[in-house]
């Protein structure tokens, strides 16, 4: 199991959809690498400064509610992964996006609204997840989180295909 998280990018909005994570016009790509430069290309967040052009060095996305809603495209987690982002921390996720993260051996961590609010207020530079202690390490703070046994098994197996292949 690789480490999860790193330098955090804060996306201060709910309902960030998969079109905003990776626009549909790039769904004609059949290699995951080709998605990398187009991550969040059309995402605009009112009241926030424009997103950086490069996500080099970013390891974590912090967002509000219903992150990843809309299309089922696994291109969204792939575009994150291709940019080195394997941890998304949010108040809640759309079901398919969340499942896609774990199916690819990545982490989608839900935290209570008050914890998310505090993260947006304090904006610690790094946010990482420790699967041994089941804590999010956000700067100086440690925030406990929960995973279902299945989610955990998927992360440990490196994804759903590896889990299912040995079993079914």
């Amino acid at each position: 199991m690789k480490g999860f998280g790193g330098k955090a990018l804060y996306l201060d909005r709910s309902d960030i959809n998969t079109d905003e994570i990776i626009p549909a016009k790039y769904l004609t790509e059949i290699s995951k690498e080709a998605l990398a430069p187009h991550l969040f290309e059309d995402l605009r967040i009112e009241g926030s400064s424009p997103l950086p052009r490069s996500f080099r060095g970013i390891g974590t996305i912090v967002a509000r509610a219903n992150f990843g809603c809309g299309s089922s495209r696994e291109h969204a987690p792939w575009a994150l992964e291709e940019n080195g982002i394997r941890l998304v921390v949010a108040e809640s996720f759309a079901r398919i996006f969340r499942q896609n993260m774990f199916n690819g051996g990545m982490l989608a961590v839900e935290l209570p609204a008050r914890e998310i609010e505090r993260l947006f207020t304090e904006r610690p530079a790094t946010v990482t997840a420790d699967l041994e202690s089941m804590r999010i390490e956000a700067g100086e703070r440690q925030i406990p989180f929960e995973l279902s046994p299945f989610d955990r098994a998927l992360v440990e197996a490196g994804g759903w295909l590896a889990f299912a292949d040995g079993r079914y």
Partner: protein
Amino acid sequence: MGKTITEKIFAAHLADEPFPGTKVLRVDAVFCHEITTPVAINDLVARGKDRVFDASKIKVVIDHVSPAKDSKTALQGKILRDWARRHEIRDFFDIGRNGVCHALFPEKGFARPGYVVVMGDSHTCTSGAFGAFAAGVGTTDLEVAILKGVCAFREPKTIRVEAKGRLPRGVFAKDLILEIVRRLTTNGATDRVIEFHGEAVKALSMEGRMTLSNMAVEAGATSGIVDPDDFTVDYLWPFAAEEYGSRAAALAEFRRWCSDPDAVYERTLEIDASGLVPLSTFSYRPDQVGPVSDMKEVLVDQVYIGSCTNGRIEDLRVAAAVLKGRRIADRVRGIVCPATPEVFRKAMAEGLLDVFLRAGFCVTNPTCGACLGMSNGVLAEGEVCAATTNRNFNGRMGKGGMVHLVSPATAAATAVEGKLADPRPYLPEEKKGARR
């Protein structure tokens, strides 16, 4: 304690429960299209596992960009085509026989009551109209379903929607689901199934029920679902006749799946369907919905009638009823996209295409194209489109474009006026006892 239809389907398909609450289900059908499947195919090939669990349960279509618009989309089609041939997948629908997946596959009888259906497409929930648990999944879930015939779910709770009364004239399934999404909000049904009940739902044709179920995911739902009844039997009869012998036998078998009267729901949402008016979204979320009559000053550049939500024959009929003998406004580009070849043929036979063409619409071949901004009607920055589609996300139909989600009747009236328009003045008075 009674069971919901979803609970019955889960119990009947349970293959494994690796952890409490994680249900691995056997799937009855895996639907595939050329956008999300090729990566799964390539990955299976790379892993030396280029196999399918059961070729007869895999249904394949090229629909998102058809005909191919460039080398990349041509390659996606080729990967899918070669794979379907290699594995002797009989139900493969290439250009000429292809249509928007969630219209085409139900039309072919591939979605049945009690089925578990998965597809790498979020609007797979459309097939819930037939009393199936039909869920959109990502490419990895699709890949495992292709290889192993299983898919894992947390057993969803069910939200019961009770749509009381009949939809008034000029108000359709699309308006009802927009109201439901508005009430539930974009994540109000996450990890839930929305079960549609009530007089208004019972009165809907299968087409209308598909429109309803199609947008369940816009409230975050895993699937929409409707109890099967006589309409379900009638729709599926060409495919079920041999198997069941009589309609009564088919109905009895299908009704087995229906939710029990004492089934337990997480909550019930009551809607007075008889009080609804024509609705439209505004802004960029599908739960931002209001009466069309409040948005009458919104100028539109394009009107799009089509998609898995509203590209079926009934949709084209009602739009044509509005357009008959009229011309669309000069400022409007009208595009109508019959969702399947069958819809296209019927529309031609009934003279609907002639109505569209005389009104100034462009008629395209069946494809998903414009709905997700991939081809056949992409918007320019700053343009506005009234569309019978299902998503109005910022940039969905093209970067910087605005989409208003409306019914086919509202779309047609809007095309005539050049701005969002209430369709009711354009529709003929209802005949007594007419069904909608």
